[in-house]
């Protein structure tokens, strides 16, 4: 099954489960959870189901396109259902069945891995989902967001699309994944991966990143004061990505790292709490 067909099938499966199929969020994020359709919508007490493919950027994971299993830019498929249904595990198994994965000849296991994202004060009960030993997805039941207990427990599935495709196509390198019958993943993204690694580790201008980080934080604070919450949150995401780049460049000491994380966390929490207040009113 080609990469693009796999995505289509999963989207179609979740559309049948009444999920809104959304386009990708258009700003750099480290995980699909941070995109507003999950991070902000789950703060409200309104029922909500959505599915979207999210490009994720983790500069520190870059390997100049040399490592067959690691990328600094990759794709996740994010599914959120609020409130969580009781048959979550069954739904996940059915989604794999929609990809023609035979559960009698393959082993699926759930390993407890409680999730925590201190930068937005979020925590959840969760499992890693392994298919024949490879972690293909994560399942989380959100318990707390913005340091506030979730009124409706939200179910989140995050598929690692490349891992799943490697399993389906039986290839041992991400770059060998067949996107369609003409192109491989490597044809489309290997150059990009090399360039992104060069940028993250060697070329990024440190003073530009530092001032840009301060700029994003300042902008987020100003926007928060004016009550323009979603753009304020977007500025936090920019700041978070800039911090990840600075970290990859190796210019942050442990103490600096901690203080930066704390500043993003405080700001994000304040925005999230204001968002909850607004949604309640």
């Amino acid at each position, binding site marked *: 099954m080609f990469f693009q067909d796999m995505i289509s099938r999963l989207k179609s499966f979740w559309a049948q489960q009444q999920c809104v199929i959304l386009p990708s969020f258009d700003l750099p994020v480290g995980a699909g959870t941070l995109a507003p359709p999950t991070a902000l919508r789950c703060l409200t007490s309104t029922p909500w189901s959505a599915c979207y493919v999210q490009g994720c950027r983790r500069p520190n994971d870059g*390997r100049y396109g040399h*490592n*067959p*299993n*690691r990328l600094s830019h990759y794709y996740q498929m994010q599914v959120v259902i609020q409130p969580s249904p*009781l048959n*979550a*595990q069954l739904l996940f198994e059915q989604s794999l069945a929609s990809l023609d994965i035979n559960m*009698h*000849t*393959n*082993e699926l*296991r*759930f*390993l*407890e891995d*409680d999730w925590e994202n201190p930068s937005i004060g979020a*925590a*959840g*009960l969760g*499992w890693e989902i392994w*298919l*024949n*030993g*490879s972690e293909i997805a994560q399942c989380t*039941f959100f*318990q*707390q967001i913005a340091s506030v*207990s*979730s*009124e*409706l*427990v939200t179910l989140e599935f995050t598929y690692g699309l490349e891992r799943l495709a490697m*399993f389906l196509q039986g290839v*041992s390198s991400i770059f060998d994944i067949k996107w369609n019958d003409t192109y491989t993943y490597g044809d489309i993204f290997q150059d990009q991966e090399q360039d992104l690694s060069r940028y993250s580790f060697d070329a990024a201008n440190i003073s530009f990143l530092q001032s840009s980080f301060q700029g994003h934080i300042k902008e987020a604070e100003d926007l928060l004061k004016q009550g323009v919450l979603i753009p304020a949150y977007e500025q936090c995401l920019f700041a978070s990505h800039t911090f990840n780049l600075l970290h990859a460049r190796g210019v942050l*000491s*442990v*103490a*600096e790292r901690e203080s930066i994380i704390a500043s993003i966390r405080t700001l994000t929490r304040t925005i999230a709490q204001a968002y909850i207040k607004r949604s309640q009113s």
Partner: protein
Amino acid sequence: MTQTATIIIEHGLLSERFQRTLAEHIPTHLKRLLAKNSLEFGQISVFTTPHNLVIRITQCPTEIIIKQKKLKGPSVKEGEEALNEFIKTTNCSRDSLIQKDLPHGSFWFADQKESAQSTWPILADALVNTIVTVPFHKRMHWIPNNPFTWARPILSYTALWGQVHQTLALPKAIPYDKSVSGNHITHPTRTEITRKDIEEHYEQQGVILSSTKRLEFLEKQISKILIKEQLTVPSHAKHLLEKHAFNTQKPYMVLSPIHCDFRKVDTHILQHIITEKVHGIPLIHHKTEQLTHFAVITNYPLSPSLEHNIIAGFTGVLNAALNDGLFFMDKDTEKPLEEYSAHLKKKIMHIDLGSVWDHVDRLKACVESGYTLGERTQSLTEALSLMKCDMETQMVHEYAALQGYIGHLYAIKQKHSFEVCEAIKEHLLPLGPHSPTPSSRLGAACALLDKIGMLTSSVSVGRTPTSSKDPFGLRRLALGIIRILDKHDIHISLHRIAETYIDLLGFTKKKDDILRFLHTFLQSRLAQFAKPYYPHTIIEASLHHPSFADLDIMRSLTLIRTLAQHPQTPSIIQAYKRAHNMQCKNAPSAHFSPKNPADIAFEQSLDSHKESDDLSAKIDAIALVADHIETFCNSTLIESANPEERAWRKHMLYKSCVLLEKTASFSYCT
């Protein structure tokens, strides 16, 4: 007549840790609640699998007899409404009510007659209360505004009282429904459902109910395969079998070979990656002692295609992890280990403590000040300089638990001396209360200095533990220090090393406070360490002795051991207590010339007491003093009519107590 209550609950996933919590919490909590209701029962048993929880309470009486008693009702002044409410709640008749005058007014009283109440409602309440209050480590909730805090969905339940289905007030859980539920457990002739019935019911569904039996089932399979393949499970990996037994409904084992390209990878690293990345069990070949295979435990009955896919999948993941490992090691060894020390300047311990590099620098300064712990200064300084360098390697970034081991491997590659490499490997030991301590002397010296430095610096910046929390692991550090000193019999003043370290930190002003805290803290840790093996009184007597001020842990520990093992110790303590009871404490010296032969003999015996450096000889000597105290007290009336004589005798006893206290603070035994 008695009956058995059986509750079968189907869940989402229960982890190993949570299954253990359930097995511990449910019987304790239930017992307490049932005892509160004066409900007797036979046995409570709890069985768990990742998807099932079964609770059985055997031999419960079907009815509870409520004994006859007099019930106090409302005050007569309160009127008809209060009286009616009282009649309703106590279920007694109006005719049986009587008025009684008490000092604070007139009240209604009723005689409640002996009656029988069905047990099930009490049991049902206790069961629901127990289930919803199982402690969950993160206190999450599953259903909003609900007493459930353990964040696991309860899908359905079956509650049997004898063989009759009952309902429980479990929020959102689906009660037993014959047409839907799989838990249709019945027996055609018996009225009770036995444990065997339940086990057989689950066995038919491919589930082994008891975790002990799951482990036995797994061990049987493993031993069969291992004998055939001439493989063995390394001793440190055996606990993984138990973990897998908890995490499966019925465990099956798949054997997978390790690709020959990776057999050259260091065995320790290979084992670590197998257990961490694929949760597999490493297997070692009998003859070659090489790690040639690993086992995967699965929850599914094996078919050839499933087995093939599992092997292919897990091997693929393992190979990728090992490829990563080899890549990191190649990158790491492009420069010598020493060069990583510069990176340690960026690793900040605390804003007031500086970096890891500063910490290492302070340890080296301690060595220069003479605290070499009996090791060669050059080797110790070399080991200290290198021991933290691997923190900045890619391999340790990826596999943090290999810190120390990676540094040791890279040091070997650079041909550092064997003892230095071993010291790098062992400097973090012991990692926990049951983890081994460093085996080499140099390793012990590095580990000790590192731990003393960490402990002192944490205390200096106020990172001290509270009664329930110890986020910086200071109790673990202190225990590590004690275990290393004990293992290598190192006699050293921790007080003086800590003092030097505090000076190097520049915290001279609060030095006394820090040292005072360290003193009390180490005293309490040493007491905890000795508690399981030695009497409390002897530990207290030894640790409150002034010699502990120097924090020579080994001296105190040796004192505890010698006192505990010395045959005369009980008589010394007894004599001390006897003298102490005479209220001789701080008795001033008195001008009196004894004439009584017993007085003269006692005085002479105290004067002839000889001090010794050897602890055994010291105890022999005070045992002699103790004998003299006993003889003196048996033969002489201390409370003499002559006040001068009485004061003199008390002073003599005080002197003898002081002699005993030179060895240990026996006042803590009184």
